[in-house]
C-alpha cells in the first residue's frame, strides 16, 4: 500500500507537466522528398510484404477497404496539354499531438517513448473513434477475418501479428524493425546508429525519396533534411504535429508558356 501511494505521488509530480513525454528516447521521423518520389508504388508493396497486410480482393477494394497502410496519392491539376501530376506517399504521420490517441477509450493507441504513435492490436475493441478522428485517413480496419490462401501464408512475417477481425491497424514505422535494431544495439552495448533502422518502404524506395531517422540525433540524415527550407508537413494547419516531413516538389506552377 505504501508503495502504491508512493507511486501515485511520485508520478503525479512528473505527469502533471504537459508535454513531459517530449523527453523521448528517440523521435523517429520520416522525410519524404516529393521531388524525388516518382510514384512507382514499390513502397506500397514493401509495406504489404513486411506487415502481413491481407489482400482483400476486388469487391472489398471497391468498398474502399483496401489495406494499404501506405498509399500514394496522386493529384492532377490542369487540362491537356498543361497537365501537372503530383504524387505524395501518405502513411500514418505519427503525430505528436495525434487526434486519434485522445479518441481511444481503451488506450489501444497511444504515444510511446520513441515518439511513435502506436496501435496495440490486441487491446482494440473496435469503436472506430481513432479512424474517424484521423485527418489523414490512414487507419485500416479488419472488416472480416481475412485469410491468406494456402500456401501464401508461408510468406507471413513472424515479427508481426496477423490481426484478427474487428481490429484497427495502421502504419507502425515498421516498429518491429526498430525493435530489432535496438535489440542488436543492446547486445553490442551501444545506441542505435543512423541508418540502422529502415522501415520497409524506405528500404525499398527506388528513387531514395524516403529517408528515415532519429530527429533527436542532430547528425542523422533525416534531422539534417528536416531543416531543409523545402520542408512542410501535411495539413499542418490542424496542428497535429506530424512526424512525417515532406520536402516540397520542385515544379513550375500554372500553365506552361508553350502552346
Amino acid at each position, binding site marked *: 500500500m505504501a508503495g502504491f501511494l508512493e507511486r501515485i505521488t511520485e508520478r503525479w509530480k512528473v505527469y502533471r507537466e504537459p508535454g513531459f513525454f517530449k523527453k523521448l528516447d528517440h523521435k523517429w521521423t520520416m522525410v519524404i522528398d516529393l521531388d524525388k518520389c516518382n510514384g512507382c508504388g514499390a513502397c506500397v508493396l514493401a509495406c504489404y510484404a513486411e506487415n502481413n497486410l491481407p489482400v482483400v480482393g476486388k469487391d472489398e477494394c471497391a468498398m474502399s*477497404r483496401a489495406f494499404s497502410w501506405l498509399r500514394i496519392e496522386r493529384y492532377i491539376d490542369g487540362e491537356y496539354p498543361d497537365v501537372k501530376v503530383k504524387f505524395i506517399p501518405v502513411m500514418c504521420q505519427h503525430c505528436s499531438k495525434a487526434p486519434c490517441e485522445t*479518441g481511444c477509450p481503451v488506450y489501444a493507441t497511444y504515444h510511446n517513448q520513441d515518439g511513435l504513435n502506436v496501435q496495440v492490436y490486441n487491446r482494440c475493441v*473496435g469503436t472506430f473513434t481513432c*479512424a474517424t478522428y484521423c485527418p489523414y485517413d490512414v487507419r485500416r*480496419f479488419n*472488416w472480416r477475418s481475412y485469410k491468406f490462401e494456402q500456401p501464401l501464408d508461408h510468406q507471413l512475417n513472424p515479427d508481426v501479428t496477423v490481426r484478427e477481425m*474487428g481490429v484497427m491497424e495502421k502504419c507502425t514505422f515498421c516498429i518491429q524493425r526498430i525493435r530489432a535494431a535496438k535489440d542488436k544495439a543492446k547486445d553490442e552495448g551501444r545506441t542505435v546508429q543512423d541508418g540502422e533502422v529502415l522501415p520497409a518502404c524506405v528500404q525499398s524506395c527506388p528513387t531514395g525519396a524516403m529517408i528515415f531517422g532519429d530527429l533527436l540525433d542532430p547528425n542523422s540524415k533525416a534531422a539534417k533534411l528536416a531543416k531543409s527550407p523545402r520542408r512542410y508537413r501535411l495539413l499542418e494547419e490542424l496542428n497535429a504535429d506530424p512526424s512525417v516531413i515532406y520536402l516540397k516538389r520542385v515544379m513550375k506552377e500554372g500553365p506552361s508558356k508553350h502552346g
Partner: protein
Amino acid sequence: MDRTITYKEASEDISGIITKTGWKYYAVLTLMAVSAVSFLFLPWAYQIYSGQGVTGLNAPVFWGLYLVNFIYWVGIAHAGTLISAMLYITQTPWRRAIARGAETMTFFALFLVSLFIFVHMGRPWNFYWTMPYPNQRQIWTNFTSPITFDVFAIGTYTTSSIVFLFFGMIPDLASLSHTATGWRKRLYTALSFGWRGTDRQWHLQAKACMFFGAFIMPLVVSVHSVVSWDFALSVVPGYAKTVFAPYFVTGALLSGFAGVLLMLSIMREAYPVMKKYVTAYHYDKVTIFVVVLSLIWSYLTLMEVVTGLYANTSQEIEHLKYKLAISPFSYLFALMIFSNSVLPLLYIFKKLRNSFFGRFIIPVFVLIGMWLERFLIVPNSLSRKFLPWMWHDYSPTWVEYSIPIGALFFFISMFMVFIKVFPIIAIFEVKEDIGIPMRKSH
C-alpha cells in the same frame, strides 16, 4: 382533468390496463418479438460471426447507421427525463399523467443505446474493456476519450433513470400489491419495499424526488452534449462544430417530445380508458414544447450551415456541397427541414393539436426528421474529409437497415411487456391530479 372520476375508478382503470389482456395483445406482442428476433438478433449474430464487413462501412466512413441510431435513441431518451425531472421540480401539473410513460420510454431508449454501442463495435465481446475496473492487466481506461465520457454519462443516465422510474413507482406498486394475486403480488410486494403511505414516507418521497429531479435535470443537458462531443472533439469538417452541444440537446428534446406524443397517442388508441387521463389538455401543453423546440432547432440548423459557409474553407465548402447536393442521400435534407421545421409549426393551430394529424402524423415525421438529422451529420461528414484522394461514399447494407428496424420492434415488445407488469400511468399522481377529496370544496 375530469374531477368527477373517483379514486377507486382511477385505480381500477389503471390496474385494468395491466391485467386485462386480450388475444390481440398477445398476437401483436408475438409478432413484435418474432420481428425483433429476425430483424435484430439474427442479423446481429450474423454480423458478429462475419465481422463488420457485412456493413457498408469503409475506410473514411467508419461511423454509419449504427452510430446514427445510437445518438438517435439517446435523443429519444431525453424527453422522458425532461418531463419527469424538470417539470417535477417546477411542479408543473400536466406532467403527472404522462410522466411515467415518458420515463419508461427513456428507460427502454437507453437500453437500445447500449445495444447500439455493442452493435457498432468491432469486437463487442471485449466491450467491458471500455469500463474502468480493476483487472490483472493493470490497465484502465483513457479518460480523455469522448467514448469514455459516453460510458460514464450514459452509465449515470441509465442508472439514474432506472432509480427515478422505480422510485416513482413504489407507491403504485404498494397500492397494486393489495389487490393483485399470485406472482404479481409477490413481485409488487417485494418492489414496494414496505411502502405504506404514511405521512413521513410521503414527505421523504417528495423530498427525495426533488433531489432526483435536481440531479437528473443537468443530465438532460450533459448527456447529449457529451454525445455530441464524440463528434465535436474531432477535427473532421462537419463534425468539429461548436454549435453541436446545444444542437444535439435541442434535437434530442424535439425527438423525445415527438416520441412521447406518438407513444401516448398509440396507448390511447389501444387502451381507450387512457383517454380519461391523457386529454386534449396534455396535448396542448406538449405540442407547445414541440413548437418551441422546433424553432430553436431550425435556428441551430441554419447556423450550422451558415457558419460552415462563413468559414469558407475548402473543407467546409466541400462538406456542405456534398451534404446538400452531391451525396446519394442529399435529397433527405429537404425532408428533414420539412418535417422538423415546417410540420411542427402547424401545432400553433389549436385544432390540429388534438386531431389525428397532430397526434400521429406530425410526431412520426418529426421522429423521422430527427433521425435524418443525425444521419446527414454522421456518415456524410466522413465521406468528405481532408485528403480528397480518400473520399468515398457510404451505402448501408441490408444488415445495417435491418438491425435498427429490429431494434425498434424490440423496443416495442419490451414496452408491451412493461405495461403488462407495471402501471404506465402513475396512479397516485393521477389521483393527486383529480384532487384531494375535501368535505368543503375549495
